[in-house]
């Protein structure tokens, strides 16, 4: 526990920890992305009814999962930052918002591109599509609110409350296809009984890991930059800057 707090509460330790581990993150990301893309786009067999069009699943499903996952991380860090006032949690919350918004946008766009040939429409106001669009707006609202308030303390608190209140949408997205009848199909990926052939499943799992690692890499880069900026007057940062120049 002491080691943990040392790593994540002391900015310098946090910075060191991230820079030590980031080559491994990047390596793992490139490996999973490479395997996922090549196996998914070239070697996975075509689907029996969608043909090659099914391959959009390799971008759509990871994006949609990350869109919801990142929002969950935002809510968790918002809670931590409200209750325990940990600066790092506030940072993670604010950095995650634009990344999550991007993944949500990607999920909406890829879904729309797939929907036109398969369903026959770009968009329909069914429960799943609408709730994901609301998620996108929640991300945008979070970013807008943060940009609109100049007092840092009030800004972080109000944004954290917004993130927590918006979390109510996450279970709604997940269960929308069960609670209501929708055009969107139910979940393909389930823990015990995924309804997708193994040859198509493994590249998908690899892509999901790759997308998650990509989020972690972006998060770490931004965290490092923010830590360096905040501690720019500290001796250890001056030392790093000195080494660089």
């Amino acid at each position, binding site marked *: 526990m002491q080691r943990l707090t040392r790593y994540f509460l002391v900015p310098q330790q946090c910075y060191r920890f991230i820079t030590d581990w980031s080559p491994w993150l990047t390596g793992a990301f490139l490996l999973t992305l490479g395997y996922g893309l090549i196996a998914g786009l070239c070697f996975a067999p075509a689907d*029996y*009814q*969608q043909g090659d069009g099914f391959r959009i699943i390799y971008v759509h499903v990871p994006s949609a999962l990350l869109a919801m996952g990142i929002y969950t991380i935002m809510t968790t860090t918002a809670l931590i930052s409200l209750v325990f006032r940990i600066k790092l949690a506030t940072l993670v919350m604010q950095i995650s918002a634009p990344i999550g918004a991007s993944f949500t946008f990607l999920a909406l766009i890829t879904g729309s591109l797939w929907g036109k040939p*398969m369903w026959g429409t770009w968009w329909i106001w069914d429960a799943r599509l609408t709730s994901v669009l609301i998620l996108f707006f929640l991300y945008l609202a979070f970013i807008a609110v943060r940009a609109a308030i100049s007092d840092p303390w009030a800004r972080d608190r109000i944004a954290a409350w917004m993130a927590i*209140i918006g979390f109510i949408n996450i279970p709604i997205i997940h269960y929308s296809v069960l609670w209501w009848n929708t*055009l969107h199909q139910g979940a*393909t990926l389930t823990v015990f009984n995924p*309804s*997708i052939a193994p040859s198509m499943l493994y590249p998908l799992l690899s892509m999901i890991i790759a997308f998650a690692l990509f989020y972690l890499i972006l998060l770490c880069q931004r965290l490092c930059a923010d830590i360096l900026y905040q501690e720019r007057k500290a001796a250890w940062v001056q030392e790093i800057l000195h080494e660089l120049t």
Partner: protein
Amino acid sequence: MKQKKKLGFICFLIVLLGLAAAFVLYALKKNINLYYTPTQAVAEKLAATQKLRLGGFVAENSLDIDSQTLQVNFVITDYKTQIPVHYQGELPNLFREKQGVVVTGHLNANGSFEATEILAKHDEKYMPKPVRELLAEQGVLNAR
């Protein structure tokens, strides 16, 4: 202690909010559902002119497409109630017999359905063609 109180307060608010959302969504259930099943549509006794969506499957051996005039006739079913559907126009790729579909239009006085738009529903199953054929041969797959 103060932190514990605060955490408790936030959790209480979240539960309250969740309940409120649940009640609202439950009250709006009818509006959120994308379509009526044929059974529901018949039970609702909807006015003949009311625009609605029907969701179900294209009944086996019911599909009749005139490739000259693009007239499409088929029966939509939820395996309890059947409603004949008439449509003229383009069809999505996945439209075929035994496929899930969502049709927009209105009911006629004689109980048939006049469709203005047809959407195909895709299920959550993904499998390669050879596997599908093997399963069909072995009779593991039912009608779907």
